[in-house]
């Protein structure tokens, strides 16, 4: 082995990079992982819900060690107008199980823990180092990386790009196109601290139970986006995000102004009352869907996680797609290297096949038209939550008006707002996009 030569270099120590580096190290490969932050997680932002299944497939007993906040027992989905919300709540004691399915986490702490596991598995991990470009041989084959620390560069059989949504290395190297403003969402988020008992009381929780609120409607001021509120042990994560092109072209809001108005909304304000804010963060989310997925492999390289545009925006899933693609990439690479093969585009295509066979690509494909639907049908995010709240009020107010008249009022208001053709068209298009 040449000095300073690795079997694989992983760029980035988020969930996708950690999943890849961990899996490679476990298979006995000589792995170098490079992270630009002072520690893993110092640059990373998430809601954050952790989906156990994807991590369990990598570290089966993660629950013993990982910094988990609360397991989710209740999901609220709120359609908001300016005065309130109408929604669905789902809660079940069944989620108080031995191995809960979803947890809230704090990414800075979680990534740090995951990174420690990667080191314990045998990978070499360096922090505070930014990969600046890919090293290529005369034929264009990727043979390593250059960093802002090491002038000569470091070589490897393969480079796994787990560099997150901005993905500067891959973009400046021409592996994938620049992101389009209509394919990314900008989310802002705050950490609100409150004593654990206060959170338990406000949300009707005991032990480590947690609640998730996903909200949409007039809170995004006509832009396509959603807001969230997640309970951690002693804090509440609250945030809101909209498509970047909507921020620039549709809305008039600043991101922090939007978040302030969400926090001041009558349905939210009381939940945060008296909290101490300890952090404000912003991050992009790749939400262009299936059609925005770039080329995934080439000679000497693969791309995983957010850099590969693997986010299921409908279900708010990203970290699990990141971990799964990271693991699948690593398994492909390990199979090739351990059998003495070369990491050619042709051989690495097995990774693409594995992603296609998994829930990752199946889900991405299922929702391939949702992005286009919302882009053309921006009104649905504002109008329908409004109509729903109007309808609920009409229905629940007892004011001497008979129920049949109330029904006609509800139908008439929907009709007037959108027209019968509009209503049926929206329903049809949504059904087709959802299928």
């Amino acid at each position, binding site marked *: 082995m040449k000095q300073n030569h690795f079997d694989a270099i992983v760029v980035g120590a988020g969930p996708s990079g950690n999943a890849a580096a961990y899996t490679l190290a476990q298979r006995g490969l000589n792995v170098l992982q490079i992270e*630009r*932050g*002072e520690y893993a*997680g*110092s*640059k*990373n*932002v*998430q809601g*954050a819900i952790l989906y156990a299944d994807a991590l369990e497939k990598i570290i089966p007993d993660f629950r013993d060690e990982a910094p988990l906040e609360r397991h989710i027992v209740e999901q609220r989905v709120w359609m908001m107008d300016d005065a309130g919300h109408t929604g669905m709540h789902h809660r079940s004691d069944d989620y108080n199980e031995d191995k809960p399915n979803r947890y809230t986490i*704090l*990414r*800075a*702490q979680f*990534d740090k823990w995951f990174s420690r596991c990667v080191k314990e598995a045998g990978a070499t991990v360096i*922090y*505070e*180092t*930014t990969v600046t470009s890919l090293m290529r041989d005369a034929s264009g084959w990727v043979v390593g990386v250059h*960093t*802002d*620390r090491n002038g000569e560069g470091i070589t490897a059989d393969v480079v796994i790009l787990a560099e997150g*949504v*901005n993905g*500067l290395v891959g973009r400046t190297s021409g592996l994938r196109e*620049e*992101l*389009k*403003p209509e394919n*990314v969402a*900008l989310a*802002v988020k*705050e*950490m609100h601290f409150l004593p654990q008992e206060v959170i338990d009381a406000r949300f009707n929780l005991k032990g480590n139970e947690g609640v998730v609120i996903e909200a949409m409607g007039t809170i995004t001021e006509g832009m396509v986006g959603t807001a969230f509120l997640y309970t951690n042990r002693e*804090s509440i994560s609250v945030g809101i995000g909209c498509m*970047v092109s909507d*921020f*620039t072209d549709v809305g*008039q*809001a*600043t*991101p*922090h102004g939007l978040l*302030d108005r969400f*926090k*001041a909304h009558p349905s939210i*304000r009381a939940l*945060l009352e008296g909290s101490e*804010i*300890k*952090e*404000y*963060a*912003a*991050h*992009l989310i790749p939400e262009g869907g299936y059609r925005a997925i770039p080329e995934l492999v080439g000679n000497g390289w693969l791309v995983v996680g957010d850099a590969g545009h693997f986010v299921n925006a409908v279900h708010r899933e990203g970290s699990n797609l990141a971990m799964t693609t990271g693991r699948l990439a690593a398994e492909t690479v390990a199979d090739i290297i351990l059998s003495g093969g070369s990491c050619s585009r042709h051989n690495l295509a097995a990774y693409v096949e594995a992603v296609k066979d998994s829930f990752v690509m199946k889900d991405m494909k299922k929702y391939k038209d949702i992005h286009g639907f919302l882009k053309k049908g921006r009104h649905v995010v504002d109008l329908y939550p409004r109509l729903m709240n109007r309808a609920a009020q009409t229905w629940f107010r007892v004011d001497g008006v008979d129920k049949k008249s109330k029904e006609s009022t509800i139908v008439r208001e929907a009709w007037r707002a959108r027209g019968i053709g509009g209503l049926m068209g929206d329903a049809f298009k949504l059904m087709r996009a959802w299928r």
Partner: protein
Amino acid sequence: MSDRVENRLFQNRYVVDVGRPHITVKPHVNPSNALVAMTRVCPAGCYSRNEQGQVEIVADGCMECGTCRVVCAQTGEIEWSYPRGGFGVLFKFG
């Protein structure tokens, strides 16, 4: 509850690479609509307009989200790179 963005950023930890800003706006006479939009859309309020109408940036509070990079990619008015390893924003919770 309605904090100004500066007060919020005050909560965050940064290691500023003094004298080496990782984002710069290229000299210009008239900024594009995209660049002007950043004076509103940057979540850290890093962009502002000077008296002559040109857009300026002070990137100390930048959270490295990349929004301005994406918005101005077509116009080429800004140069954007990550801060050197170890510098920039440092999230405690994320």
